């Protein structure tokens, strides 16, 4: 490309990018019950009391809180999380609402919010047959299809309800995959987690519909600390989707979630995420800090856990959905597209811990960096000495769309025996001017051409998403890239 032409075109495109809107940036005007800012033991007790929790859970929270006090925020990520004042955050915000019941009981403003997000809560309107748990700020607003699922023995409800209705199950599994001692943010979450989803698929049941949780941060100066727990018993199957958005606000907001998954013998869990938290504006002001711990335990033989994520939002992303492959012949998969634009920073990847014999794992990571963003893949493949006959294949690609963005790769491989095979492939490329011109010549404008090329690049991962999500995710990739070529 002609150097003298470039800056002009670049500027114009950057200007357009600035105007590209984050279409979920609205705020719902709804009465919210917020407990005062700050964090101490009393706040932890108050959250627990507000939710009417049993003693053991309060103990769990308090232990986590006390442990958290001894920890420091991790600094090893290739992201710049500023000093967070944990006393300036409110740890509980609930839309003042409804007793649990039919849709008619839900505040119309709330219902409108989820309608606007394309998440209608009326069950009869759900053509796709997807069960939804909608979480606004700290609480679950509504879980659809609960009764129908219950006939099969499938439990799908908010974790607060699960604590009340299925205390033994929750107690048995909570904190078993991600203990509160795991890391700084996990400890914090364990102390103050407010709500999230709980899924239990009983033995031999194939969940007939996609289960989905939709997270929405609405209130200002609050943090969101949800907690998701999914258990697939022997021979069970479930596909679970997670989506998230937040209003545009000038201040940064903290999202520190935990997802724990347990997969028993021959069971399979597919966990898909389309993460679209508010990324901040073009100057890097505002946006969500997405500091999340997600981990699954393939406990049973021949169990399988598959993570698919499309990450386009958040000012900072720090997350590594991982698989502990404990069962023999267990299978772990991680398919990721992480797109960063403007001043976003993402440090994401996975850990595949092979403990069981003949366990296999696949990692496909596609990073896309535009604007001034920094995009890192961080991954670990660890094969224990006794885990013989294991296989891992890792493919890790980076695509750069600008001269001012960065792509980084931090892979760690530890193989403890000589009967296992580990493969790692990595590429870094820059978007090709010739490809764009080829599209232009066929009548496709540059913006659309970039969307097309990037979607093609990410196709392998997108193909893993459930149909309803794939279309949304494709659009999201194109929208997030608007005006990013220069």
């Amino acid at each position, binding site marked *: 490309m*002609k150097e003298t032409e470039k800056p002009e075109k670049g500027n114009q495109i950057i200007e357009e990018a600035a105007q590209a809107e984050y279409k979920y940036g609205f705020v719902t005007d709804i009465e919210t019950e917020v407990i005062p800012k700050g964090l101490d033991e009393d706040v932890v007790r108050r959250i627990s009391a507000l939710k009417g929790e049993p003693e053991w859970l309060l103990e769990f929270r308090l232990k986590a809180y006390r442990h958290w006090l001894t920890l420091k925020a991790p600094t090893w990520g290739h992201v710049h999380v500023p000093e967070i004042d944990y006393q300036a955050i409110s740890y509980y915000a609930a839309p003042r609402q409804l007793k649990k019941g039919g849709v008619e009981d839900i505040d119309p403003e709330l219902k409108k919010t989820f309608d606007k997000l394309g998440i209608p809560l009326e069950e009869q309107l759900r053509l796709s047959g997807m069960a939804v748990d909608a979480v606004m700020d700290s609480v679950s607003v509504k879980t659809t299809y609960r009764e129908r699922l219950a006939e099969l023995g499938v439990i799908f409800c908010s974790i607060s309800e699960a604590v009340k209705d299925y205390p033994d199950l929750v107690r048995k599994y909570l904190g078993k995959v991600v203990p509160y001692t795991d890391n700084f943010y996990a400890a914090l979450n364990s102390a103050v987690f407010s709500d999230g989803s709980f899924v239990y698929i009983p033995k031999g049941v194939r969940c007939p519909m996609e289960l989905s949780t939709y997270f929405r941060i609405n209130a200002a100066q609050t943090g969101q600390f949800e907690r998701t727990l999914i258990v697939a018993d022997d021979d069970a199957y479930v596909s679970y989707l997670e989506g998230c958005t937040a209003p545009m606000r000038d201040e940064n907001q903290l999202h520190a979630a935990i997802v724990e998954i347990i997969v028993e013998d021959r069971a399979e869990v597919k966990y898909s995420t389309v993460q679209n938290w508010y990324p901040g504006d073009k100057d890097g002001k505002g946006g969500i800090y997405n500091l999340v711990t997600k981990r699954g335990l393939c406990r049973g033989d021949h169990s399988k856990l598959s993570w698919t994520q499309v990450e386009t939002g958040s000012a900072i992303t720090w997350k590594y959905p991982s698989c502990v492959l404990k069962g023999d012949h267990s299978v772990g998969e991680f398919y990721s597209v992480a797109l960063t634009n403007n001043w976003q920073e993402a440090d994401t990847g996975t850990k595949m811990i092979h403990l069981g014999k003949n366990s296999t794992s696949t990692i496909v990571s596609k990073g896309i960096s535009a604007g001034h963003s920094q995009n890192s893949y961080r991954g670990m493949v660890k094969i224990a000495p006794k885990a013989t006959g294991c296989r891992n294949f890792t493919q890790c690609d980076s695509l750069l769309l600008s001269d001012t963005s960065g792509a980084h790769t931090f892979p760690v491989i530890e193989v403890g025996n000589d009967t296992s095979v580990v493969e790692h492939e990595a590429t870094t490329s820059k978007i090709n001017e010739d490809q764009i*011109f080829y599209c232009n*010549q066929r009548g496709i404008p540059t913006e659309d051409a970039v969307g*097309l090329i990037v979607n*093609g690049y990410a196709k392998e991962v997108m193909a893993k998403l459930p149909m309803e999500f794939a279309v949304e995710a494709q659009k999201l990739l194109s929208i997030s890239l608007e005006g990013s070529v220069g």
Partner: protein
Amino acid sequence: MLVIKDLQASIEDKQILKGINLTVKPGEVHAIMGPNGSGKSTLSAVLTGNPAYTVTGGSVEFYGKDLLALSPEDRAHEGLFLSFQYPVEIPGVSMVNFMRTALNEKRKYFGQDPLSAADFLKLMREKRSIVQLDNKLASRAVNEGFSGGEKKRNEIFQMAMLEPKLSILDETDSGLDIDALRIVASGVNTLKSKENATIVITHYQRLLDYIKPDFVHVLYKGRIVMSAGPELALELEDKGYDWIKEQVDSQQ
């Protein structure tokens, strides 16, 4: 339809085109020949708006419009098509998706609704047969893993889909065996009409045995130094370019 006047263009401050004059009317086939480095491919790149090149002088009118003022995609919508010498691969983007996007962009430009999926697939089937592309090829990613011959056939297939008014075939014969050459040429001839025109850029007479030009121009050092009827191509095949080079160089 196309009037090029004194067109000058450069790449990275190197002047390549030094004043091209050329007029193309509907129904005509023009061949542009010339030795390597004479500016043939630059001409096609400049006409289609490749941003790597800078126009430094002259004008181009396309159906009365100032072609050089239009974006590359609008030039395409107005009916300008380039069959690339080196078609690029776009991994992961299926031909169906690519073509559908291209076609619907054109329809949008003319205020038409997008083509329905059924109508589009029907059109693809129809046009595919012109260059004997099989079904599988059309559902593969754009040019990915295509052989040289398949890539060129794919270019003509796209030309058939987009129904341009003026097609520029840039070295379409390069890298083709005789069978592929026949298929490509017969595709081009099938698409020929009284309303559209073709500019064939080539080194060799060979392609012109199949695509008969009305005019043959020789490009040398950024200028058209000779124009004549189809007999010129045969003469060039026979005598090479040296006699023209000598003639031009001695005049300078």
